């Protein structure tokens, strides 16, 4: 008689009821040279969340976003993606899971919009490997999603700010990331493009379950779109929570050092933030 083996259960530190965070930042202090840009920052991002990082200029928003994506070298043990330190991932391995979109992108060369999107497939290809039909298919669909297909043959450098930003989002989509990091994606766009880009991100979050972390300046847009806000000042986390709990009059006045009024719009919803003259 053969012995019936019990199926071995995978040993897991966490139970399904408490989802393990996608990204964990622990006691992160970081400096480019002397003065620290970030001081003892700690936060967790769970899968499916949309987190906005807000704060005055120079508060460390971009630096935090770059450290999360492994674009800057974080001190050991301070930034984990899944259960592993981001430093321990190989570069292509991390790029297949985390995508990062800059505030602005410029190239002096005449790459087309389609070529720029295809660059998102880089971490999936071997050196000198040409893109295959499935790569083309993915790029085509990503450009459909971002409404950029109609100018796929145009030069990237000749597109408008909003068009460029959507092309960059398409190139992040073909990276098929679990986490998408954005460094002030809307700050150089006019109102129409700001809303267009944020609506697009909202759909990616909702329909594809991509976790979003973005640095953003506009507090009203942040309140409207993000599920959670992290407020930074001088490299420290001042508040972390729902937009309602973070965007308090006293907190904002202290962090931004100006007088502020909160006005509830006629239709209801998040109170709007007005600087007092």
């Amino acid at each position, binding site marked *: 008689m053969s012995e019936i083996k019990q199926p071995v259960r995978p040993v897991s530190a966490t139970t399904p009821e408490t989802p393990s965070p996608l990204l964990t930042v622990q006691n992160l202090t970081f400096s480019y040279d002397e003065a620290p840009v970030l001081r003892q920052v700690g936060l967790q991002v769970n899968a499916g969340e949309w987190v906005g990082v807000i704060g005055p200029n120079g508060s460390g928003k971009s630096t935090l976003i770059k450290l999360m994506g492994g674009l800057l070298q974080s001190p050991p043990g301070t930034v984990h993606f899944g259960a592993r330190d981001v430093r321990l991932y190989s570069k292509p391995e991390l790029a297949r899971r985390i995508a990062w979109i*800059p505030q602005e992108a410029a*190239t002096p*060369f005449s790459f087309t919009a389609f070529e720029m999107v295809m660059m998102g497939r880089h971490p999936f290809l071997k*050196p*000198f490997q040409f893109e295959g039909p499935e790569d083309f298919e993915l790029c085509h669909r990503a450009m459909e999603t971002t409404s950029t297909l109609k100018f796929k043959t145009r030069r990237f450098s000749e597109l408008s700010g909003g068009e460029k930003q959507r092309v960059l989002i398409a190139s992040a989509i073909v990276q098929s990331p679990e986490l998408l990091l954005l460094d002030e994606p809307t700050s150089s766009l006019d109102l129409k493009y700001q809303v267009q880009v944020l609506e697009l991100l909202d759909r990616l979050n909702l329909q594809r379950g991509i976790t979003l972390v973005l640095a953003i300046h506009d507090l009203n847009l942040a309140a409207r779109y993000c599920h959670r806000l992290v407020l930074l000042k001088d490299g420290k986390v001042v508040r972390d929570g729902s937009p309602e709990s973070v965007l308090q009059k006293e907190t904002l006045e202290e962090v931004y050092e100006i007088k502020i009024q909160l006005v509830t719009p006629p239709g209801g919803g998040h109170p709007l933030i007005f600087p007092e003259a």
Partner: protein
Amino acid sequence: MSRTAILTRRRYSISLASFGLLFIGTLLFAPLVGPTHIDLHNALMGSRDFSENVDANILFVARLPRVLMGALAGAALSLAGAVFQALLRNDLAAPFTLGVSSGASLGAVIAISLEWKFHFLGISTVSLAAFLGALGSVLLVFNLVRTPHGQFSTSTLLLAGVTANFFFASLVMFLHYLSDFTQSFQIVRWLMGTLDVSRYENFLSTLPLVLTGAAVLIWRARDLNLTSTGIESAMSRGVDVDRTQKTGFIMASLVTGAVVAISGPIGFVGLIVPHIVRLIVGPDLRLLLPASMLFGGSFLVLCDTVARTLMAPVEIPVGIITAMLGGPFFIWLLKRKHN
């Protein structure tokens, strides 16, 4: 010029085949042209002893090695130009404008004037010194212009290149001043950028260096593509930017040094050729690099054919021809950039 949205295998093969045909055509045509008419039939089929066969001597001893060396130098300088342009994200970068050629010249002149004649691993000391000079100058320029975010302006880059050029040129002049009459003549001719000293040995010793550089760079061309669109975006797509920059600068300096050691600093080839080829095939370096090599080889051989025949029997150094074409071209580029 219009092109498709993206590089496909089909377009890749067609483009490379076309540039390859141009290259082979130029190599076959150029040796037949020159101040002396040669009888091709006699040169190839001549029954007489080779030493008495004038046609064969002109073809195989005087012209062919020179054409081969020209093709190799043109290919190498164009390759290096395209790589520098991608790494520095600036289409005005080239071995000549960055001061890399003059760094290589300094290395070579040091080796010539100290009469280092030995070989190291089959590579002549002049080549080795030229490579080190090229690498030294590109690192100098890169460290002068680099910022934490990897952004720098065209004017900063060009100023750094001009400064490096002046600096190395003055050191070359100093060595030149100290050298004796024969060395001095050798240095002057060589500094003008010339292919008339070419022998098969030169070609054969340079070829493996250029092919190695080309293979490594073309193999890593997609990494270079991404780096040319921005350091941080390249990193976020999984490119090891640090390694790409190191490999790129070392390999481009290697091929520049290898040919500058033989032919002198032939200017502007590395600027003009990648530009023209980019207009035709687009900026994807997987195609741009090999296409620039083929076109650059043809271009320099044709320039040298003009140099050999324009004032025959006087032969003008080819560097003068390329500089006369390259100067106005550079000004046109600079002006277009401003508009």
